[in-house]
């Protein structure tokens, strides 16, 4: 013991003696320790406001729509040579998303599409995508109607073209539906969450697989809940995930009808498919209005905004879970808590855990006087403009950190942190949490997202939002390193291999946050799009 003390004394004294003087006291020293702020001046962006006119006696269809709308086609190059070595961690030059039209690769400079792979078949769709640290090797996992998921790998060349696209020789267990995928820095390890497929009861699990051998190890939770929103450290040792707690995600299917001067009750089928493929256990809704102006014309002023006269009240009650394989129903937006003064309709969740989600619809008669726009004059019989407010539910603040090097096969052994939904001034709930490649921190977006589907009669986004870091030792907040004021909240989508670049979404844009702040990568035009884990760089 004395030997240890002596060695300690000797080493610390030798270190101390490398300083032999200190500069004088400078009383004016600005606090070098205070966390600075990066971000943008408030109000630099105007909130997107949409006009959603509704034709005479029209029904308003609330369906799920989303993803980046792109045409099918492309240069898949299925069956080419397998991937080779993975380079060092690189600042991303491409990002890829998996949507209804397969996988689309885009350049971070301008968002131009560089390559595309269609979905494997009309019965199989990509549910999650992840990149290795070099931003060239990507993996994707699919779910299929026959409950036989598959894993895919593709490699990008320097121009962002997909050089090879292959199914891996091993796959997630049959009878499961993958929820989310994560990959180690060198691409040698994959982690994915699974949920029971179809109506069969089963348990969720987390699987880590070696991409060379296909060997895998599975962790299951006692209560059957699975894992979603996975991320992995560069060495593949730690996996961060969100417990897939509420296995319900309500999606308003084409059943929610709003008519002027009507009070009605609509059933909202629960779509099991979305329950875990979205990154959140929350209610999922996107509003599509049919017939009427298509979404690509939403910036058209159309019939003018009418004064808010709530004439319709809608109560949507989640019904029994309904499994649907409608491939157009994707990208849920999650909905959330905060009082909406103009709410004339609200989604009443069946699950207690959803009680803080809100969805407001307001239908207003359009009168000619209020609709001067040429060619689109509303007839007196033409009923209504729908005003809807959707607020995006935060994720569960409970995250699990699994040490894959520790023995055991229970997901309950994972360390659980409850991330504070307020840190350093930013508040509003956790919108995506990922582990940094070095495993020292959890990065989470904190904030609220609300989307006005009508004329933007919304309470402004409350307080500053931003990206915060939390310690992986104990979940303690380390500080907010990116702040935004006066914009809709960010959702964190992915962290790159260097740990310095965050892929985010905000106001219908896909963007990047790095040391110089936020920048837009591409505008999806859909403020409600929720990529879950179907986008990566």
């Amino acid at each position: 013991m004395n030997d240890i003390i002596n060695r300690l004394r000797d080493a610390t004294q030798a270190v101390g003696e490398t300083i032999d003087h200190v500069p004088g006291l400078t009383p004016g020293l600005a606090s070098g320790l205070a966390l600075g702020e990066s971000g943008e001046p408030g109000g630099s962006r105007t909130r997107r406001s949409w006009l959603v006119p509704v034709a005479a006696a029209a029904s308003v269809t609330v369906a799920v729509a989303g993803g980046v709308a792109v045409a099918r086609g492309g240069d898949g190059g299925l069956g080419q040579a397998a991937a080779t070595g993975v380079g060092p961690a690189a600042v991303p030059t491409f990002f890829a998303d998996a949507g209804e039209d397969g996988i689309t690769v885009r350049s971070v400079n301008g968002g131009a599409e560089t390559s595309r792979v269609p979905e494997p078949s009309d019965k199989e769709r990509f549910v999650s995508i992840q990149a290795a640290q070099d931003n060239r090797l990507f993996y994707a996992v699919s779910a299929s109607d026959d409950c036989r998921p598959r894993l895919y790998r593709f490699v990008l060349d320097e121009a962002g073209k997909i050089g090879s696209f292959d199914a891996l020789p091993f796959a997630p267990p049959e009878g499961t539906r993958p929820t989310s995928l994560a990959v180690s820095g060198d691409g040698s390890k994959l982690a994915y969450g699974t949920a029971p497929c179809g109506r069969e009861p089963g348990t969720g699990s987390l699987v880590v697989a070696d991409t060379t051998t296909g060997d895998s190890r599975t962790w299951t939770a006692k209560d059957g809940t699975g894992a979603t929103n996975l991320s992995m450290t560069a060495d593949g040792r730690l996996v961060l995930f969100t417990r897939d707690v509420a296995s319900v995600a309500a999606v308003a299917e084409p059943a929610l009808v709003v008519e002027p001067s009507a009070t009605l009750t609509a059933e909202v089928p629960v779509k099991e498919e979305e329950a875990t493929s979205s990154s959140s256990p929350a209610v999922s809704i996107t509003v599509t209005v049919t017939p009427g102006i298509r979404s690509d014309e939403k910036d058209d002023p159309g019939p003018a905004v009418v004064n808010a006269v709530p004439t319709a009240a809608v109560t949507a009650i989640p019904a029994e879970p309904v499994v649907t394989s409608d491939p157009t129903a994707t990208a849920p937006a999650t909905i959330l808590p905060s009082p909406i003064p103009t709410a004339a309709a609200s989604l009443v969740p069946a699950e207690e855990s959803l009680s803080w989600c809100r969805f407001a619809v307001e239908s207003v008669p359009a009168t000619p006087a209020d609709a001067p726009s040429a060619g689109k004059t509303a007839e007196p019989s033409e009923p209504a403009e729908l005003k809807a407010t959707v607020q995006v539910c935060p994720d569960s603040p409970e995250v699990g950190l699994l040490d894959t090097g520790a023995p055991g096969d229970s997901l309950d052994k994972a360390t659980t942190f409850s991330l504070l939904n307020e840190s350093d001034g930013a508040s509003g709930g956790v919108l995506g949490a990922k582990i940094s490649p070095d495993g020292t921190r959890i990065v989470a977006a904190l904030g609220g997202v609300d989307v006005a589907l009508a004329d933007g009669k919304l309470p402004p986004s409350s307080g500053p939002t931003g990206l915060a870091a939390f310690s992986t030792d104990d979940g303690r907040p380390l500080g907010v390193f990116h702040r935004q004021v006066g914009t809709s909240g960010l959702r964190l989508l992915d962290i790159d291999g260097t740990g310095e670049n965050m892929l985010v979404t905000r106001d219908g844009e896909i963007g990047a946050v790095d040391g110089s702040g936020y920048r837009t990568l591409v505008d999806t035009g859909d403020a409600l799009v929720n990529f879950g884990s179907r986008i990566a760089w």
Partner: protein
Amino acid sequence: MTTSEAADDTIAGLYAEHALGLARLALIMLGDREAAEDVVQEAFLGLHRRFGGLRDRSKALTYLRSAVLNNARSVLRRRRLPSWFAGTYEPPVWSAESAALLGAERREVMEALHRLPRRQREALVLRYYGDLSEEETAQVMGISRGTVKSTTSRALDALGRLLGDAR
């Protein structure tokens, strides 16, 4: 002489007497000279702000040591943020890349010390580098004397194991 001038004099005296020692303490915790100097400056600024409640010089020194440890913790935490936010810092003076060559054996000790939990590391450094008594260490760390004793004991065991492992 006004109260404020007297405070300035006292603080200047404390700085002349203890700044170097505190900077060395901070360096041992952080490995980075520039950050260590900042941490000490920050501690003295804190002392200046709250000097009204701290007239006893011995208590002022306890406060300063405590502030140095606290500020060093903040710096270590901040290093876990993305580097574009946390800033870059030099490799620790005891690392192989550092110009301050200390030798493999000392480097091994310092690396092991920094693998210990924060509280164990602080207790060891205060007790055996700072030569503080258990009581003084307890005051600086804001924990009980008994906790200092048990923490130090566990820390020595752990350090011994780490150094044993390294051989």
